[in-house]
């Protein structure tokens, strides 16, 4: 039997539904049948383990990891940092976080992206980090630009950074996006608005963090990422008995 605690159930109202027609790509890619609920077993509570040895020295520095020697990408220099926590607020150590993004002009280094804005010869757009013993992570990058996308109207994505996050169990696996405080495109974006609860959208919105801003160098943005945590057991049972 699994010797790890069971994880909480996912809150389906907090996550986007599968079928969100304002985001047109979801129309034909959303299952119509209900998800079948499984009991958790070892395969859900354990997951792949990544050692720090998978990382290269510049993996967490998108300002440098694709740039030619002595050059830098165009754009606003930023540090993005925070904690990877479970739902009871405990840091998740040793977890792999992978990020990807457009460049400052809103263009991805991808053969399927043909937006007018140019590629930046010094920007690749990928980075990865492993959380420390307290679940803390940080990476340096340039602020991505907003860009238009084909969704049937005049739709623009807010500036965003994609996150791929591993917990300690495979059932915690999560991909999401991080937005920037104050971006007027957030409330207009059909992808953001697949999430119904404004508090949930706020949870993906990084806040300017002057305290960790490096004077004359870069500004900091803070985003904590939360993964599913242990189910409440005894404590909650006691409450239920009141």
């Amino acid at each position: 039997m699994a010797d790890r605690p069971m994880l909480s159930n996912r809150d389906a109202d907090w996550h986007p539904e599968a079928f969100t027609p304002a985001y047109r790509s979801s129309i034909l890619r959303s299952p119509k049948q209900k998800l079948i609920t499984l009991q958790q077993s070892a395969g859900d509570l354990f997951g792949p383990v990544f050692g720090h040895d998978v990382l290269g020295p510049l993996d967490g520095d998108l300002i440098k990891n694709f740039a030619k020697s002595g050059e830098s990408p165009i754009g606003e220099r930023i540090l993005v940092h925070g904690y990877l926590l479970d739902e009871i607020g405990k840091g998740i150590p040793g977890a792999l976080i992978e990020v990807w993004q457009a460049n400052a002009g809103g263009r991805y280094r991808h053969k399927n992206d043909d937006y007018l804005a140019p590629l930046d010869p010094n920007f690749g757009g990928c980075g990865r980090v492993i959380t420390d013993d307290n679940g803390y992570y940080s990476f340096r990058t340039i602020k991505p630009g907003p860009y238009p996308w084909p969704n049937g109207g005049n739709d623009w994505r807010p500036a965003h950074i994609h996150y791929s996050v591993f917990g300690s169990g495979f059932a915690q696996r999560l991909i999401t996006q991080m937005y920037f405080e104050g971006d007027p495109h957030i409330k207009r974006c059909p992808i953001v608005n697949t999430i119904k609860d404004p508090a949930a959208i706020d949870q993906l919105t990084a806040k300017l963090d002057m305290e960790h801003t490096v004077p004359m160098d870069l500004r900091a943005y803070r985003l904590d990422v939360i993964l599913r945590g242990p189910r409440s057991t005894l404590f909650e049972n006691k409450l239920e008995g009141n």
Partner: protein
Amino acid sequence: MSQKVRLKESPSQTAGPYVHIGCMPNFVGIPHVYAADLGTQMIGDETTGERIEIVGCIFDGAGELVKDAMIEIWQADASGNYAGQNGAGSQENREFSGWGRQPVDLETGQFIFQTIKPGRVPYADGQLQAPHVTIWIVARGINLGLSTRLYFSDEASANANDPVLSSLDEARASTLMAGLKDGQYQFDIRLQGEHETVFFDV
């Protein structure tokens, strides 16, 4: 005693069409940033178990190929243990990570995993499950990663007693069955419509 506020899981957002940049940059022509894309090689000379190949495609509700998805698989080793279960750095871990990641081909839509056939692992109630591989799918238009399972059609007796398969009607259970053809396990995934694949909430 004060009750601690429980945090909410960060809500999911689609991986979008450019997931490869972050998770498999070498595959989309961003070389030299990472030495190799993670998860592309699951087995080595030391890995114990029957070598198998899993191939398939993903179809949308109009029957069109999905060409921008990323798939991860997670499975037990040949003796039915998951990496990490016997302690990090154990012999089993070094020989087989149990985790693989592949894109679907940007032109053909096909995915291929080279792995081993997993052993049987217990379900929550302790009953042994049939050998299976957990599959996780993300792509543009998928708002929350989809979880499913691949079972092996040549494991008839184990399948007949599997607690998950037994809970599904026959037609739905058949969407989880990989058939052996030309030495490969064929497993197509249908996101929507007739023969829609069973997806799980774990």
